């Protein structure tokens, strides 16, 4: 087991966004989180990475076990160092080159020497098809290129699991394919991943397990086949019909 989370609760003011969510992730497993906007998918990932502090919840990851609502800054940091996040809006460091973005975490944590970090950075950039763009700055890249740098940055840290928060939602349609292609290649080499996505067809293709989050709870879960091809849950049926009918939102 890579990680196991139990009973995650998160409130924003009086509004309960997540109401007792469980998640476990096995080695090499890809879990897709789907659900309507505002159902708490992104919040769930952000709580996992301690970008939001949970109100309740218990997390086990690698050799760490902790109460998520009581975590100190030091514990949060320890968890973050086992995970990596790919952000919807990329979140590339504007004051670093493309290569600098990928090596930044390694250099800040002093995991590797500069030469070793840059060596790894170049390899990863080549992997995501960005060899030759090492010295560019983020604002000189297309959306698709930015997100591929975001993925390379996440991989550089050799995390236990990669968390992807709607990695294609901010992209113009023309760039979605190239980013999905990179994520597909990660799935095929058995990287443990949790991906929040609106791309239902893509979730069906790469996920081992799909979770349908609705109003702060996991309303249904299962293999992509049973969940997506034969939905029993009425809210899931309605959601899928809406998506297939093209009422996709990008929030």
């Amino acid at each position, binding site marked *: 087991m890579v990680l196991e989370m139990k009973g995650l609760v998160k409130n924003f003011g009086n509004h309960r966004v997540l109401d007792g969510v469980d998640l476990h992730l096995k080695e090499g497993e890809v879990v897709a989180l789907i659900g309507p906007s505002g159902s708490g998918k992104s919040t769930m990932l952000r709580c996992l990475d301690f970008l939001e502090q949970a109100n309740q919840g218990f997390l086990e990851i690698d050799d760490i076990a902790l109460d998520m609502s009581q975590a100190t800054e030091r514990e949060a940091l320890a968890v973050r160092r086992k995970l990596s*996040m790919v952000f919807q809006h990329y979140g*590339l460091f504007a004051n670093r080159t493309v290569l600098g973005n990928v090596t930044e*975490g390694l250099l*800040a*944590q002093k995991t590797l020497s500069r030469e070793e970090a840059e060596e790894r950075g170049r390899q990863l950039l080549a992997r995501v098809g960005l060899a030759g763009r090492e010295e560019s700055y983020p604002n000189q890249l297309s959306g698709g290129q930015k997100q591929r740098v975001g993925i390379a940055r996440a991989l550089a840290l050799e995390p236990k699991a990669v968390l992807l928060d709607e990695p294609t939602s901010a992209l113009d349609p023309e760039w979605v394919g190239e980013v999905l292609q990179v994520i597909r290649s990660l799935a095929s080499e058995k990287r443990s991943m949790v991906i929040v996505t609106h791309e239902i067809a893509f979730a069906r293709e790469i996920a081992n397990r799909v979770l349908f989050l609705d109003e702060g709870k996991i309303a249904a879960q299962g293999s992509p086949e049973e969940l997506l091809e034969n939905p029993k849950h009425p809210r899931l049926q309605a959601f899928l019909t809406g998506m297939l009918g093209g009422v996709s939102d990008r929030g």
Partner: protein
Amino acid sequence: MGSFDLTVFLRAFRTIMRGLPVTALAAVAAMAAALVLGTLIALVRRSPQAVGKRLLTAYVSFFRGTPLMVQLFLFYFGLPQLFPALSTIGPLGASILVMSLNGSAYVSEAVRSSLASVDPVQMEAALSVGMGKSQAMARIVLPQAFRIAVPPLGNTFIGLIQGTALTFMLGLRDVMGMAKMGAAASYRFFEFYLAVGLVYWLLAAGATWFNRRLEMRLSLGHGGHDGA
């Protein structure tokens, strides 16, 4: 109708330039200290658990809301009355100290607003690659904030250069002090004050040029936000 004497005017420059080291030292030292202090103030005022926040708000408000001359007089002539130990600080030290405090109030406001304009996802991304909060601030957020803050910080520096003109009232032989003495000794007020005006103007122009260069250098490669 009097006359303008070119040789007096040129001689005035020579006299005034002898005050330049003091002016330059006061302005540069005050700016350096103001940068450090002002950045710290901005960071403390941002942090949620800061206890001294109210005090710092009052501090910034006081130093921005009262004339530099009043601050100089209050510190140099006023405070030693209460704390005699302070009278051991000479006019140069007192000038630099007061101008540092004054400048730090302006710097803190410039840094505060530029920190607020850095996209919050920059901090989140830095945390997500395993940095601690202060590391993320130092490596990612502050450098971007400073880039945005360069133009207002340039204004603060020019303000401090001009502020040094007041320090002659504490008896300092800065360029203004030299001009005042030269004018009083020769009765050639126009020549001396015109010359000292030009000196300040040149200093401000130099600072502006340096500021532009810095702005251009820092924006090379990455102009603007990493947005969608």
